[in-house]
């Protein structure tokens, strides 16, 4: 260990402390000016908290995993109304979320009697694609398993210091700044597209209250075509391989798992069928988990539900779908009661 004169040590430490404090204060002030409600990271944080919250009393939990199709198309309160008071339905889906990957990340948080509803949006669920909110959710679910004291401490820090919430990082802000400067107005991913008007319900249902608007379909359709691989068979094999293990393990622990395909229509549905033909993807999933895969086109009640942008259920359709889902889950859980 080299000897550093005491004066140099003190000066270096003073520079360290003062510079770090100045940078942290400036960053804190900057972060406080940002609106934290609309970030996709916030969605991941809320979803992770819902997943980790223990069941109250004898309540049985239903976790809804997936993408915006799930949090726009499924109203947990309506599903619960169909299932009964003993049930606690929780929305875990995040923007561009990957249902099967969320199921995998949440493995440690299930208990016997729980039900996992895994919504499969082809582009993400079949290819294994994971964008920011999904990765963030997985990190939060598979994190170090902080102890109680740690959680308390972190909670106090997050209450008082905006930067400690981890929603923004200097690198991420720089990236956005660079992107906005080079390509003004271009979202980096479909999850950043602005969609309004929406009511965000406390149970996690994001109800679209506007009329059918085909212009909203352009962004997601372009993103689908740009991002989808010519052939995702190999990736899908990997997804199936992992699902096989996950479902087997969960069922051995008394957890029921079902898979959903929510409605899509028009040009988006055609593009999805072209890129991810049902025969090559969904039917294989159905073959792996017979009786547990519910495709909207297979049921009269869900076949003709309307969307507001070809991919997300409109308010009325979402309520109808949720009622159908709740009733079907009730029958399914009674049939497979632990």
């Amino acid at each position, binding site marked *: 260990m*080299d000897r550093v004169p005491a004066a140099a040590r003190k000066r*270096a430490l003073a520079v360290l402390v003062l510079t770090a404090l100045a940078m942290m204060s400036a960053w804190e002030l900057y972060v406080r000016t940002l609106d934290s409600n609309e970030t996709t990271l916030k969605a991941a944080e809320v979803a992770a908290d819902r997943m980790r919250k223990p069941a109250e009393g004898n309540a049985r939990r239903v976790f809804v995993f997936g993408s915006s199709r799930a949090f726009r198309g499924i109203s947990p309160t309506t599903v619960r109304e169909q299932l009964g008071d003993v049930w606690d339905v929780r929305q875990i889906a995040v923007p561009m979320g990957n249902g099967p990957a969320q199921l995998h990340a949440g493995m440690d948080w299930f208990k016997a009697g729980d039900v996992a509803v895994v919504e499969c949006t082809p582009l993400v669920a079949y290819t294994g694609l994971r964008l920011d909110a999904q990765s963030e959710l997985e990190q939060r679910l598979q994190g170090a398993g902080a102890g109680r004291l740690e959680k308390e401490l972190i909670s106090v820090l997050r209450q008082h210091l905006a930067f400690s919430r*981890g929603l*923004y990082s200097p690198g991420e802000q720089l990236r956005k700044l660079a992107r906005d400067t080079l390509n003004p107005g271009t979202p980096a991913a479909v999850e950043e597209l602005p969609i309004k008007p929406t009511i965000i319900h406390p149970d996690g249902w994001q109800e679209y209250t506007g009329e059918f608007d085909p212009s909203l379909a352009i962004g997601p359709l372009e993103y689908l075509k740009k991002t989808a691989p*010519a052939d995702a068979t190999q*990736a899908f094999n990997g997804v199936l391989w992992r699902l096989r293990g996950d479902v087997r393990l969960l069922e051995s622990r008394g957890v029921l798992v079902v898979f959903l395909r929510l409605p899509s229509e028009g040009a988006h549905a055609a593009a999805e069928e072209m890129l991810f033909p049902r025969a090559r993807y969904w039917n294989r999933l159905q073959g792996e988990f017979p009786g547990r895969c519910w495709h909207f086109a297979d049921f009269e009640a869900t076949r003709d539900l309307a969307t507001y942008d070809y991919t997300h259920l409109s308010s009325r359709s979402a309520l109808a779908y949720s009622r159908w889902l709740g009733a079907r889950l009730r029958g399914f859980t009674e049939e497979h009661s632990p």
Partner: protein
Amino acid sequence: MLFTSPVFVLFFLVVLLLSRLPLNWGIRKGMLLLASYVFYASWNPPFVLLLIGSTLVDYFVALRMGRSENQRARKVLLVVSICVNLGVLAAFKYANFLSQSFADFTGMVGWEVSYTTWNIVLPLGISFYTFQTMSYTIDVYRGKLQPTRNLADFALYVTFFPQLVAGPIVRASEFLWQLNEPRRGTPQQVYWGVLLFILGLFKKAFLADAVFAPVADQVYASGATPTALQAWVGTYAFAGQIYCDFSGYSDMAIACALMLGFRLPDNFRGPYGAIGFSDFWRRWHISLSSWLRDYLYIPLGGNRKGRIRTRLNLFITMLLGGLWHGAAWTFVAWGALHGIYLGAERVARRFVPERIARSRFVKALLILLTFHLVCFGWILFRAETFLDAGSLISTMTGLQSATGLELFSRWNMALVLAGVGGLIAVHSLWRERRIEDLSARAGWLVTGAVAAVMLFLALTAGDRGAEFIYFQF
């Protein structure tokens, strides 16, 4: 309790404060021992009993060995110690792997054997403290070390919390003597400890978790097939992640010990600036590679039994080194690959004149070659199955048709390339320099400012709560 968590910072501050109280050295050592057990129990309290059991076995075996003049009895005691240590390791870490491998093997020859998969929780740091206690009994057996009579000292050596769960693997000869005299971090040690801790935190929280991990995970853990370019960048990202994760942990461990007044051995010395593989292993996880050299390679005969035997010994040593990392054939293959690298390097050295290797250009080429071959090994290390590894290698080499996904943005790609390029440049340019030399040359202003920026980036990188990769070993 991760080194990067606020609870650890609180815990460490309390321990540091207690260690500076004007109390008897014995009491302060007792407090350090207690703190170490509390630290370990914060993960899984029952496993403290296993740690205590391992400590007691090796303490009494070594004591008995020290008292005995009978070589045969000493050997029996050594075998007892090794069997207990490796037995515990085998039971907790390798039981499922061994039974599954046995069933797979018998299945291949047409004999179907059913086996049960046990739900075994791997005690944190078991591979590290097992090797540490084994080195103690072996050194006592060899007569290189006198067994300590002080059980509390020995327990503190095994349990000392900065290095307990992920190394460095400290030899008793490097640590026990430090317990003989009262210790408190001197102002010099506290100063360097603070700087080293910030460096480790920066490597772990910013570089490993925020820059490299998101990209590496997309390529290795998402199940999706990337494009060839993204597969390469994902592999570079993992190379950066594993170095920053593990060396960041080591830096923080050494820093904590230093602030308490203890010296732990270096564990990394710019490995991505290595020229060749023997050089790489002198710079990567030094405490493990030197352990394997002293307690496995040399007893096997080292380089004393001819060329072929030397290469075989290298291969066996690296193979077992791979297995030490994890109970999977991919780790064994990774170790074997490094064994082959080391053997091939010895052959190559016979044909390449020394003067050619001295040119700067050739050195730079060799550094890049070594790095890429190391990266090739990391594919086996990170992939969950051989199938995954094979698929990724096919994608990278263009053997698989290019139908992959763009899994991450160009920004992330640029960040990873800059990060890995920076690591290679720093490691190559400062191959023989220590952080202390660099800080002394830079002066107090630059040292303080650079440390402040590192701290800022580490604290604002976002809380991902990711465990250290080497905790699983």
